[in-house]
Structure formats: C-alpha cells, structure tokens
C-alpha cells in the first residue's frame, strides 16, 4: 500500500488531543467502521435479530398474549399434515410461475415496441411505468371494482359484445380468482420488466444490427443472435428479483381475495398472516412464513452469486 503524504503542517489552532483524534479518523479501518456502525447496528437489531427470533418463535406454541412453550418442530409437523398448507404451496408456485412467464414475455414485447424511435417516446415510457410506481393497494382498489361481481366492466364488455351471456364471478370462482390475481400481478409487474429490458436494449450498438443485416440475417435471426445474447444477463437478474418478490407477495392477494374463496388463492404470506395475526398463533404463523425460505433461499443465493460474478 502506498504511503500517503502527510497533510501539510499548518499552524494548528487545535489542541493536540483533537489532532490525534483526527489522525485516528484518517485510518481507513477506523473511518470505515465509524461510518458503518449506525446502519449496521440498526440492521442487526431490526433485520438480523427478528430473523433469528422468528426461527425461535416457529419452535414455540405461542399465542399472542401468553408466554411461549418450546415445542420443537411440532408447528412444522402440523403444517406438513395440513392439506391447506400444501394447497398454499401449490398456489404460490402456480402464481409465481404464471406471472413470471407472462411478465417476462409481456415486458420483452413492451421493451421491443418502445425501443423503436418515435416522437414522445420519453412521455410514453413515463406513462407506461405508472402501474409500478403507484402504491399497490391503491391501484388494486381499482381492480377490485373492475372485478366486481355485479358491476364488473370486463363482464359488461364481454356481455355486450355477445361473447358470453352472463358475467363471470371473477373473485368468487376458484379458478377465476387465481386468474384474477395473476392478471393484476402481471399488470403491475410488466412495466418493471419492460423498462429495465428497454434500458438493456438501448445499450446495443446499431452497428451490430447493420453488420447482421449485411450478412443477410432476418429479423428473427437478428433477435435470436444479436439482441437476446446481449440482454440475457438483464433478463436473468430481473426475473430472479421478480420471482423473489412475487413468491412473497402479500398486498395484491390480501386486497383482492384475502386468500379465498376457500383458500383457492391463499399464498404463503397471506396464510402466515391469517395464522399469526388474525389467528393470534405467532408460532404457527412464523413457521408458515419460514416454510417459504427453502425455495426463496435458492433464488436469493443464485442471485447474490450472479451479481457478484460480474463485479
């Protein structure tokens, strides 16, 4: 390590004690740890501690108002014997898989459309991102009305164009309620994919396309052999992020269906909420929330490794 030149000595009005404090602060290690301390302590107290406390809770029979009793893995065993828990697992995977595919394809299509040059592109991009920035619960309120059993505008259009004779019960029917939450999650997520992928597309030099065109590549070949390889890292990162946050989604499901009808749309987090908060069984709730950790951990570790690979 290079020896740093001493700061030029100035007539020091400060007392020697202050000078020495300053020289300690000039050391990289001391300066770094002093800067880090408040944030790191905060995260230890309010992220790391609750995380491990959650594991401890999951091993207890712990009603809200009473002290807990250690029960070992009993909560997890109860969950494993509960048909609802397996339905929740299935629902969460279906929800995540379906929305991820739709968001990826929709976002890619959106990015390719906006990547063409046209007037007002900046404005269009700004408007298209709106679903993603507006607070989720507030936009879901609009969707609740769109899916209303009596006054659904989708039903109105379908009935009046003669496609169906009577309206669907979007949130009351078991399969349709799953379709409904998938629609809303996809609607909110497509702009995230679209705008991020667009940023990737804009890093591609037009020269590459020209070279490919001169070599006689068709549009399809140019997409498969020029565009796709370049934006692949972005697609992977965006998808992994989105999988993490969709898998642990709460807001859309809670507001639209509360997990119903008959648990048809119950996912891990709404289920943990029902057990732990509404039901007051903190131990069971913590266990249900932790049950999503194995699947999540795979994606989180993969994403951390993938990000670190290119830095």
């Amino acid at each position, binding site marked *: 390590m290079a020896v740093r030149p001493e700061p030029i000595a100035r007539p020091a009005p400060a007392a020697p004690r202050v000078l020495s404090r300053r020289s300690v602060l000039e050391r990289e290690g001391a300066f770094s740890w002093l800067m880090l301390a408040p944030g790191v302590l905060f995260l230890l107290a309010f992220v790391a501690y609750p995380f491990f406390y959650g594991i401890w809770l999951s091993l207890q029979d712990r009603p809200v108002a009473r002290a807990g009793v250690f029960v070992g893995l009993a909560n997890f065993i109860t969950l494993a014997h509960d048909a609802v828990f397996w339905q929740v697992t299935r629902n969460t995977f279906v929800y995540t898989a379906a929305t991820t595919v739709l968001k990826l394809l929709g976002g890619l299509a959106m990015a390719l*459309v906006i990547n063409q040059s046209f007037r007002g592109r900046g404005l269009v991009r700004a408007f298209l991102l709106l679903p993603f920035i507006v607070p989720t619960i*507030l936009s879901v309120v609009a969707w609740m009305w769109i899916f209303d059993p009596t006054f659904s505008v989708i039903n109105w259009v379908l009935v009046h164009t003669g496609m169906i004779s009577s309206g669907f019960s979007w949130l009351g029917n078991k399969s349709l309620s799953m379709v409904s939450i998938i629609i809303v999650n996809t609607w909110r997520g497509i702009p995230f994919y679209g705008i991020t992928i667009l940023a990737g597309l804009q890093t591609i030099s037009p020269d590459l396309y020209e070279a490919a065109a001169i070599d006689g590549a068709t549009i399809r070949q140019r997409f498969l052999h020029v565009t796709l390889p370049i934006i692949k890292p972005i697609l992977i990162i965006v998808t992994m992020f989105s999988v993490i946050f969709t898998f642990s989604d709460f807001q859309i499901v809670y507001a639209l269906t509360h997990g119903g009808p008959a648990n048809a749309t119950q996912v891990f987090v709404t289920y943990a909420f029902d057990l732990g908060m509404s039901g007051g069984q903190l131990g069971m709730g913590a266990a249900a929330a932790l049950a999503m950790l194995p699947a999540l951990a795979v994606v989180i570790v993969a994403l951390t490794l993938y990000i670190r690979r290119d830095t």
Partner: protein
Amino acid sequence: MIEGRGILTRTLRLYLPLAVCLVAMLFPFYWMLITSIKPNSELYSARIMPLVVYHPTLKHYVDLLTQTNFLTWTYNTMLVAVVTTTVSLVLGTMIAYPLARMNFPGAAVVAIGVAATYLVPQPLLFIPMADIINKLELGNTLSAVMLTYPTLLIPFCAWLLMGYFKSVPRELEEAARIDGASRFQAMWRVVLPLTTPGLLSAGIFAFTLAQNEFLYALIFLSKSEVRTVPVGAITELIRGDVFYWGQLMAAALLGSIPVAIIYSFFVDYYVAGLTAGSVKS
C-alpha cells in the same frame, strides 16, 4: 405506394402495439378517475354504459375529505415517507461509502450482509417484528412504522449507492486528500457532489417504496388517527360487506398523486435507479 406500405408497417409494428400497451397499463387509472366522479345512481346501475360519466360530481371527494380521516392519513403517510427516506438515505450512504471506496477488515462480510438484508423479503420478518414492536409498546404509533420501514429502505439505498460511489475515480479523492482534506471532507466535498444523481435516484425510489408499504402499516396501525392512506382506505372505506366505491376511488386517486408528482419531475432518475442494478454498462 412505398409511402403507404411504410405507414402500414409502422402501424402494425409500432402504433397498434403501443396503443395496446397504453390502454392495458392505463385503463385502471382511467377507471379510478371516472368511478370517483360518478354519482351513485350511475355507479350502481347495470343498465347504464359504464365507460363514460354522464353527470360528473365531486360528491365522493367532498365526502372523503369531510367524513373520513383521509387528510390525517395523508399527513401520516407523507410524514413517515419523508422521515424514513431521509434516515435511510443518510444511513445507506454511510454504509455504501466505505464498502465502495475503502479497504478494511470485515468489508466482504458487511457487503454480503447488506446484499442479504436487501434480498430477504419483509414477509419473512413481519411476525417476529409484530411481537418485538408489541414488546417495545410501540403499537399504534407512527414510530412503529418509522422504525421498521428503514429495514426495507436502508439495504436498498446502500446497494444502489455503492455502484454510484464506485464510479467516481479514486484520483479525485486522493488529490483532495493531498490538499489537506480529511477523509470526511473528501467524501462530503468531492464524492457526494459527484454522485448527486445517485442520491436523487435512491431518495425517490425509497420515497416510493415508503408510500407503497402496506404490511407493517396494516399490522401496527389499528387506530384511525395513526393510519396511512393504503391502510385507511382498505379498512375504513370497506366496512364489512359495504364498499364505498366512490370514496375508495377518490382515495386511491388522491393517494397516488404525491408519488405521481414526484415521479413526473424525476422520471429519469427513477428509471436510472430501477435499472442500475440490472444494467451494467
């Protein structure tokens, strides 16, 4: 002939898909707007064409502002968002700066820890957190959410800012140090001014996230006077089976406006923050 074909291709490739995108993405907001200005007679009629308004009225807005605590909820939401964004930006900077620019023992561990806290989703923590907040006797106070929101925002700010801090050439800082600047002065006067776009991106993004937060607010705030807009709207404008649709839509629209305004001023910074993690150029 050729002109005509050009327009046709452009319509098929650009205008038509663009229109589909815009309608699909923006229709719910249009629906929010027109529902909020429909009188109840139009709102609850299955026979009237629902896509337009015949007799617009501001009644739902007046009711929302005079009969509910909406203004208090708005004040709470803004207060919490501003406080938590500021705190998170400061602490996030203090974490990101040494990690991006210093060599010191333990740096790698802290960096992985920050990445992990960023990626571990909040739903893993909300049940133990509810118990902790309960024990601290902070239930039904804004302190409860002011204390918990930064757990989501600090890792995000730190993670985003690290990239910006790394992009400033080391020579600039060293030159300042040779001129007698302390480490802190080199950061404050040289590096931070150069990373203002990053600070803006992180701040706007954190503000949006704070406005969007719902789970902690739902759990911790059960008294009307301390609620935020999302929780207030969903718990008090829906009573049992009765939905006050007009007021709900008015609340949704008004509640979205602060975010939308800030977003419209800083849209480029927002997009930069959104893509900073995934696009490395």
